[in-house]
C-alpha cells in the first residue's frame, strides 16, 4: 500500500461559531496528525469567543481568562478566523461544500425557553438571554431597552445565568464601573430604582442548578442583602434522603451555603435579594397599559419519579409577588440553522455523538458535524465543551480516515478566502480582532476597567480605520 502525500492535500474544515466548543474542536483537529487540517472559523459577529464575551458576566473576568487558550489555538498557521460572516446569509451550505471537506456547527443555544404562562408577553417581561447580551455589549442587543425605573424584579430560574442577572441587578454602580459592562448598560443600571429582587427556583435548594461560588457570592454583595426564608432553605425529606444516599460533596456544600445565608439577619443594605425555592410562576398580571404589575406563583412540593429524579409538583397554594419587571431564565435552546436537520424537542441539531443525522433516515449525513450546546443542549461549564468537542472531532477524524467527506471543487485556502471576501468584504481576521482587542483594553485602562467594548459593527469597522 502506498501512502499518499497528504500534506499536499490538506483536509479543510469550516467551523460555524467561535465560542468554546468551536475553539476546543479546532485545537484538537489542529494537533499534528498524518493529515494536515486547515481550519476556518466563522462568526456572524466581528469578534470571537461566543458566550465568553457575550454571556459570562462582566464582574467575572477571571472566567474570561480562558480566552488565552483560544489565542494559542488561533496562533496556529493553519487556523483562520472570519468574523462578521454569517452562515445562511453570506454563506450557504452549498457554498461551504465547494470549499471544505467537513463542516462543524458550534452555534450554541441562542434563545430562551418560554414559561408558557399567561401574561408572559406583557411589557416589563423579558428573557434573561437578551438582558445578558445587552449588558455585555452584544451588537444585536445594544438597542434593547429595559425598564429599570421599576422597584421590584423577579428572575425566574436558579441556574448560573439567573444568578448573573440577579447579581448584576444587585450590584452598586461603583462595583459595575470596574467591569467591562457596556457603557450604555452601566448608565441604565446607575439610574435603576430597583429595591427588591426575587430569584425564583422551581425545586428545592438541593436541586438548584447554580454552582457553589455563584450562590456564595450572592451572600457577599456590597449593598444588597441576600434573604432566604429558613423554611425554604431547609431540606425536605426526599432531598435529605437523596443527599444521604448520594453523598455528593458539591450538593452538600451548596445546601450548607444556602442555610448559612438563611440563618443571617439582613444587614439593612439598600437592596433586598430574596432567593425563593419551590415556587413556579403561573401568571403575570398587567395594568391597563399592559405592563406587568404582579406575578402569581404556585408553591411546589417535590415528588420522586420512578427514575429517582426529584421533580416539582404544584400544590393548591398560591401567592402574589408585587413584581413589575420579570426576566425568565428557565432554560435555553438552540436555533435551527438553514438546511441542517433539527431536533425541535430538545432545541439541538439532530445528531449522534456529533455526527449530523438525516431527519428522515436518521443516518449520518456525510461531512456535517456539531458540538457544544447546539449538540447536547445547554449543560455544564465552559470546559464541559472540551470533552464534547473532542468526541465530535474524533468522529470527524474517523470519517476522514474512511474518506467519507465532501469533495470540494476549490480545496485551496486562498480560494476560500477569495470567495469569502467576495461575499463579505468587511470580514474580520484574527489579526483584526487582536487590534480591536488591544484598542478595547487600552480604552479600559484609561478608566481602570478590564476593557471598554465596542458594541456596534460600524464602530468596530471604523476602529480598524476602514470605511
Amino acid at each position: 500500500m502506498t501512502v499518499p502525500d497528504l500534506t499536499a492535500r490538506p483536509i479543510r474544515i469550516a467551523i460555524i461559531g467561535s465560542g468554546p466548543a468551536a475553539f476546543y474542536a479546532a485545537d484538537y483537529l489542529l494537533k499534528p496528525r498524518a493529515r494536515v487540517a486547515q481550519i476556518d472559523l466563522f462568526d456572524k459577529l466581528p469578534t470571537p469567543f461566543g458566550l465568553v464575551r457575550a454571556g459570562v458576566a462582566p464582574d467575572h473576568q477571571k472566567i474570561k481568562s480562558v480566552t488565552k487558550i483560544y489565542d494559542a489555538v488561533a496562533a496556529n498557521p493553519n487556523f483562520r478566523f472570519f468574523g462578521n460572516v454569517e452562515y445562511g446569509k453570506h454563506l450557504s451550505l452549498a457554498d461551504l461544500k465547494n470549499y471544505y471537506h467537513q463542516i462543524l456547527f458550534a452555534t450554541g443555544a441562542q434563545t430562551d425557553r418560554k414559561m408558557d404562562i399567561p401574561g408572559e408577553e406583557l411589557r416589563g417581561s423579558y428573557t434573561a438571554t437578551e438582558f445578558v447580551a445587552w449588558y455585555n455589549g452584544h451588537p444585536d442587543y445594544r438597542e434593547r431597552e429595559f425598564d429599570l425605573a421599576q422597584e421590584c424584579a423577579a428572575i425566574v430560574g436558579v441556574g448560573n445565568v439567573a444568578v448573573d442577572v440577579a447579581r448584576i441587578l444587585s450590584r452598586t454602580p461603583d462595583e459595575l464601573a470596574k467591569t467591562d459592562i457596556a457603557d450604555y448598560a452601566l448608565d441604565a443600571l446607575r439610574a435603576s430604582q430597583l429595591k427588591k429582587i426575587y430569584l425564583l427556583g422551581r425545586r428545592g435548594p438541593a436541586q438548584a442548578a447554580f454552582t457553589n461560588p455563584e450562590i456564595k457570592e450572592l451572600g457577599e454583595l456590597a449593598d444588597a442583602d441576600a434573604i432566604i426564608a429558613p423554611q425554604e432553605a431547609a431540606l425536605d425529606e426526599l432531598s435529605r434522603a437523596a443527599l444521604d444516599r448520594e453523598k455528593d460533596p458539591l450538593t452538600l456544600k451548596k445546601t450548607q451555603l444556602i442555610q448559612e445565608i438563611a440563618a443571617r439577619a439582613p444587614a439593612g443594605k439598600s437592596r433586598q435579594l430574596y432567593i425563593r425555592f419551590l415556587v413556579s410562576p403561573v401568571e403575570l398580571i398587567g395594568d391597563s397599559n399592559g405592563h406587568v404589575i404582579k406575578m402569581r406563583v404556585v408553591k411546589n412540593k417535590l415528588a420522586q419519579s420512578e427514575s429517582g429524579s426529584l421533580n416539582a409538583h404544584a400544590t393548591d397554594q398560591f401567592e402574589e409577588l408585587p413584581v413589575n419587571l420579570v426576566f425568565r431564565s428557565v432554560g435555553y435552546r438552540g436555533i435551527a440553522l438553514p438546511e441542517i436537520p433539527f431536533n425541535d424537542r430538545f432545541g439541538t441539531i439532530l445528531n449522534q455523538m456529533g455526527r449530523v443525522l438525516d431527519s428522515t433516515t436518521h443516518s449520518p449525513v456525510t461531512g456535517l458535524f456539531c458540538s457544544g450546546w447546539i449538540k447536547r443542549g445547554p449543560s455544564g461549564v465552559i470546559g464541559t465543551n472540551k470533552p464534547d468537542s473532542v468526541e465530535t472531532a474524533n468522529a470527524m477524524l474517523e470519517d476522514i480516515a474512511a474518506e467519507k467527506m465532501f469533495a470540494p471543487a476549490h480545496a485551496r485556502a486562498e480560494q476560500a478566502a477569495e470567495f469569502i471576501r467576495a461575499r463579505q468584504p468587511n470580514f474580520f481576521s484574527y489579526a483584526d480582532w487582536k487590534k480591536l482587542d488591544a484598542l478595547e483594553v487600552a480604552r479600559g485602562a484609561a478608566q481602570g476597567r478590564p476593557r471598554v467594548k465596542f458594541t456596534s459593527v460600524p464602530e468596530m469597522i471604523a476602529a480598524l480605520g476602514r470605511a
Partner: protein
Amino acid sequence: MKIANILSAKGMNVFTVAPNQLLREAIHLLVQHNVGALVVAEKSDKPIGIITERDVVRAAAGNENFFAVRVGDVMTKDVITAAPEDDVKSVGQTMTTRRFRHMPILDRGKMVGIISIGDVLKAQLEEYEGLIETLNAQIAPG
C-alpha cells in the same frame, strides 16, 4: 445535567423487538446494533418490557433450546423509565442501587430513547473533566 442532554446526542433510534419474536432474532438485533438492551414493544410508543444481555444469559442457562424462546417469556417486565427532564445524577443513582443498566426514556408517554449506565457514566465523567478544564484555565499563567 438532564437526561435530555444525553439524549440530544444519541440520535433518535430506539431499537425495539416484539414480544412474540424469538430470542434468536433479539440476539441478532443486539449484535447488529451493537447495543446491550432492546425495548420490547408491540408498537414503538409504549414499552411493555426490556430484554438485555443478562436476560439472554439467564434464558440460556436454564434452557438448551433458548434460541426458540419467545422474547415475551424471558423479558424483564415492569420496566422503570425516565423522562428527558430528569436529573442524570438521580437516574445514575437509581440504576446503581437497583442494579440495572438500561432505562427507556418516555416523553409524555412516547418513547424517545434509551439510556445506559455507560451513557450516564460518560456524561458524569465529561462533567468532571469540564470542571477541571475550567478551573485549570483560570489558574494557568497568563
